């Protein structure tokens, strides 16, 4: 009867939406509470028994909640398992194929599920049953659904036998490639490369022809899809065809009238250049690449800049020296900030990958002058992109060049008005430290750090705090005590909670670095002093610091210096402070010895447990039970 009902619904003229609502609800029921009953009933096969879940789902038919349908689709594998491979193939899949009209969200889930369905339809032998629903999904409008369907198709293509691939899969690709609406043709672009390697040479010729057609499709959407798959397709083609077919397509796409197509050809350029022997690059690829690097659209130039390291690797050292170095210089001097920023990002990688024999000379005479210009660029994104990689040059250029040429640039960037630039320099200090030692920079570093530490934007302050442990490690304890300690303490009374919190965490890391003795002498007294601050937020900060520091400081300091302060604060008039005392005691309890716990902590917690404030009570009781003091 289940079967009949589905078939009835399937063939009758009931509206589409009702029809699949019917199935979805059915699935939902099977998927959840009815799962077990149904499986047992299915095992007992037919009979009127199956009517019950059907009746339920007929009732639920009126439920148009997408979420229900979505849930059921996500349990599609459970349903298929319950139905068995035979019925999944003969009933479920035809039904799904016919119900492609639904919410995109549901379709997305369906497209994903079907990619993992091979075993549920009976293994590789039957995997082609999955093609019809996925074919329909590959033609829908919504991009995410289509992409997911293509992804699933690519996945199951691997599970097809070579014969099935030609009999079932390849015809599907062809149908999609010659579809009326652009969506199916777009989807087809992603399927050529997965079936090409495993089909006969006649079919291969057809596939190449189809791909060619799509590369010159009427709609830019399809050309974009083809351009984005060009590299991938080139990889599976025989070298002769790469030279004869792909290059002409590549050249055509790279000079498309739409920049959105041209820029995708740049990506393909990387793969194509990798495939070709060195001697062919100059004639087959370079004219196009040169043209792209000087394209009139900044988007294309941006793409070249963005892919520069990959391009550099793909074309090899000779072409790099002759062509890419001047191209890179131009990109660094581009009139659009976007392009300059993308190129600036690649400075280090590009220099690193230059051929070693004359790397230094190229950098010094060609790249460095451009870099110097960029240090005073008008656009902050350009400067900050540069700042994030410029320090890396020091390892490449060595000590002397760094001191003579790079150091002035670092110093200039450390004084930049844009905090992001300064931060990027500071966050990469470790690179320089290896080459020349951070001392060279310390004089300029300090003002920069101080300014960032007092920046009006709390996110900037937060960022610099995060580099403190690193800086402290590199600058050494004396420098730190002398110059930075006050900053670290000042952050503890910042008016933004996130800063106070980060400052607390920072103290802990510093103690881990400099040791307990240093903590006892420099930090702990200041922290404990704040316990008498009139501002309760500062008093709470003391507690948070104690929480963070107790473990790093060890039992002695905790018991002798911190604990008395905490205990004293249990009489604070602000309830928030009192319940934080309870929390602190819970936190530092494990560090204390049992004697202190019993004689000092326990009475205080017991008192707090009878506090008038319910939160204080709660946290005191929690601490008592966690510390097992009851």
């Amino acid at each position, binding site marked *: 009867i289940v079967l009949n009902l589905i078939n009835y619904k399937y063939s009758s003229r009931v509206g589409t939406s009702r029809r699949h609502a019917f199935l979805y609800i059915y699935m939902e029921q099977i998927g959840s509470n009815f799962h077990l009953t149904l499986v047992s009933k299915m095992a007992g096969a037919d009979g009127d028994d199956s009517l019950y879940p059907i009746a*339920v789902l007929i009732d639920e038919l009126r439920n148009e909640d997408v979420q229900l349908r979505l849930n059921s689709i996500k349990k599609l594998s459970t349903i298929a398992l319950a139905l068995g491979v035979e019925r999944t193939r003969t009933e479920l899949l035809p039904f799904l194929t016919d119900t492609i009209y639904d919410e995109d969200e549901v379709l997305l889930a369906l497209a994903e599920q079907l990619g993992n369905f091979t075993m549920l339809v009976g293994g590789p032998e039957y995997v082609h049953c999955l093609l019809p629903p996925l074919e329909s999904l590959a033609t829908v409008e919504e991009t995410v659904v289509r992409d997911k369907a293509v992804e699933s198709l690519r996945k199951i293509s691997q599970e097809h036998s070579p014969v099935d691939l030609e009999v079932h899969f390849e015809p599907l690709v062809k149908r999609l490639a010659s579809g009326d609406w652009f969506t199916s043709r777009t989807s087809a672009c992603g399927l050529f490369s997965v079936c090409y390697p495993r089909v006969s040479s006649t079919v291969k010729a057809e596939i190449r022809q189809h791909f060619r057609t799509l590369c010159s499709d009427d709609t830019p959407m399809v050309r*974009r899809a083809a351009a984005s798959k060009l590299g991938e397709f080139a990889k599976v083609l025989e070298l002769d065809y790469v030279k004869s077919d792909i290059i002409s397509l590549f050249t055509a796409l790279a000079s498309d009238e739409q920049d959105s197509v041209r820029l995708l050809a740049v990506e393909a350029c990387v793969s194509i250049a990798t495939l070709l022997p060195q001697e062919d690059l100059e004639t087959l690829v370079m004219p196009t690449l040169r043209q792209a690097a000087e394209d009139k659209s900044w988007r294309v130039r941006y793409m070249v800049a963005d892919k520069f390291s990959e391009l550099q690797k793909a074309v090899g050292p000779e072409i790099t020296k002759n062509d890419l170095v001047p191209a890179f210089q131009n990109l660094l001097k581009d009139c659009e900030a976007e392009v300059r920023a993308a190129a600036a990002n690649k400075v280090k990688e590009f220099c690193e990958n230059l051929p070693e024999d004359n790397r230094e000379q190229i950098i010094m005479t060609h790249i460095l002058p451009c870099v110097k210009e960029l240090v005073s660029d008008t656009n902050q994104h350009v400067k900050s992109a540069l700042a994030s990689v410029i320090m890396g040059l020091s390892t490449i250029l060595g000590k002397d060049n760094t001191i003579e040429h790079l150091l002035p640039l670092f110093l200039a960037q450390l004084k930049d008005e844009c905090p992001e630039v300064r931060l990027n320099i500071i966050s990469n200090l470790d690179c320089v430290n290896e080459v020349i030692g951070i001392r060279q920079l310390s004089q300029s570093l300090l003002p920069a750090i101080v300014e960032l530490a007092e920046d009006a934007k709390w996110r900037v302050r937060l960022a610099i705090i995060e580099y403190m442990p690193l800086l402290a490690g590199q600058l050494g304890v004396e420098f730190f005590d002398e110059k930075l300690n006050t900053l670290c303490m000042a952050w503890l009374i910042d008016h933004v909670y996130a800063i106070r919190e980060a400052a607390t965490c920072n103290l802990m890391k510093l103690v881990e670095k400099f040791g307990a003795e240093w903590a006892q002498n420099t930090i702990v007294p200041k922290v404990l002093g704040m316990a008498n601050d009139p501002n309760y937020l500062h008093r709470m900060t003391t507690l948070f610091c104690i929480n963070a520091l107790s473990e790093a400081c060890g039992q002695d300091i905790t018991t002798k210096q911190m604990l008395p302060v905490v205990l004293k604060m249990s009489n604070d008039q602000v309830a928030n402070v009192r319940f934080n005392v309870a929390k602190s005691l819970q936190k530092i309890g494990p560090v204390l010895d049992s004697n202190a716990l019993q004689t000092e902590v326990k009475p205080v917690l017991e008192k707090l447990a009878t506090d008038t404030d319910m939160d204080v009570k709660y946290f005191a009781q929690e601490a008592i039970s966690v510390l097992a003091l009851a």
Partner: protein
Amino acid sequence: METTKLPPTSPSSPTTSFSVPSAEKVDGFPRRSMRRARQRRSHSSSQFRYQSSQVELTPLPLLKDAPVAELHDLFCKKLQQCCVLFDFLDCVADLKGKEIKRAALNELVESVATSRGVLIEPLYPEAIKMISVNIFRTLPPSENPEFDPEEDEPTLEASWPHLQLVYEFFLRFLESPDFQPSMAKRYVDQKFVLQLLELFDSEDPREREYLKTILHRVYGKLLGLRAYIRKQINNIFLRFIYETEHFNGVAELLEILGSIINGFALPLKAEHKQFLVRVLIPLHTAKSLSIFHAQLAYCVVQFMEKDATVTEYIIRGLLKYWPKTCTQKEVMFLGEIEEILDVIEPSQFIRVQEPLFKQIAACISSPHFQVAERALYFWNNEYILSLIEENCQVILPLVFATLYRVSKEHWNQTIVSLIYNVLKTFMEMNSKLFDDLTASYKVEKQNWSQGVVNFRIRLIYLHGVSCLIKMCRYH
């Protein structure tokens, strides 16, 4: 930053908007050092870069003083002169040259607008070349990557003082009584139109306004380009919907389409229907719908007025893309539905009333009072009211439970009183049906409270049986 260097001439001068990158506006840093850097290169447009060497302009004699025999030659020279581009980001650079070009453009505009017989064939390629050189450029990257057309000020085109005149010239050129489409079509070709359409992405609303009028004229005069223009607009919209979600000129393009649709021949071609179903309706999903919704709704209604049979596609399409979380968009959708209902044919109304009023009922029960209010306003519309009245038997049962429940539960007093009015209207329309529904609603509610489970199971079986019966009938 640059503002300090502005010539104090016109307060609305576009250069005032040379905004500093947004992040710098807020950080409170002194911008002294920003000023000293290479300003000239900083934002200069992609266009200017391609002018190899700057030509010094020398003023030519005035057109009005030229003897008739030399007029065309002089006109042509002026056109060539106007092909020189200037750097407008450095607002003090080459002021003399800029002024000469501005004066020449002004003259060209005036000449083409007022005097007869100027536009002779040899001038067409020169004119189109001058226009192309000036207006076609890769639009620079937006200064604000998260540009929100509703919130943020647009970046205005720096070279507007010249660009405006070029556009003005183009417009006058197209509108001139001397304009010969047969000559123009050799130069205003598909490639030209494609570049023109890409310019609609300009952030500058003044530029888009010109482009709109110009494209409309081109569409009107160059018949051979019509299908191509429609197809490329389609592509732009599809890219906007499914790929980038960003295009500044959607509203302007829709406005043009509104009048194009108006001129479609009947019966509608498949191409046009496809445009409606696969492009216009999906446009409703855009995040920035509010910017072009008025124009979009106008296009949709135009389609309906052309051919009533598309009504069902439209309504079902809107219902499919009905906003799930964005109440602001929901209000817009309701507004569009009302516009549609205003002109709907009663026979079409019957076809969509069921799903439509389910959605309306859902809107009425929205906790957001503006959504509920907008939906309830439908009952103030006399035509809609008459449609509801004719189909009271179907509609009232669909909305009754919602109205009844919301009238008891809604937090907003205005909504409650609006609902009372609606209930009252229904009562007057069909008091028998109203009473029946009231009675059964109460029974149902009681049953629920008594024993939900029993009721559910009974209902389940009832429906199961009825479905089986229906099934037998079909077979």
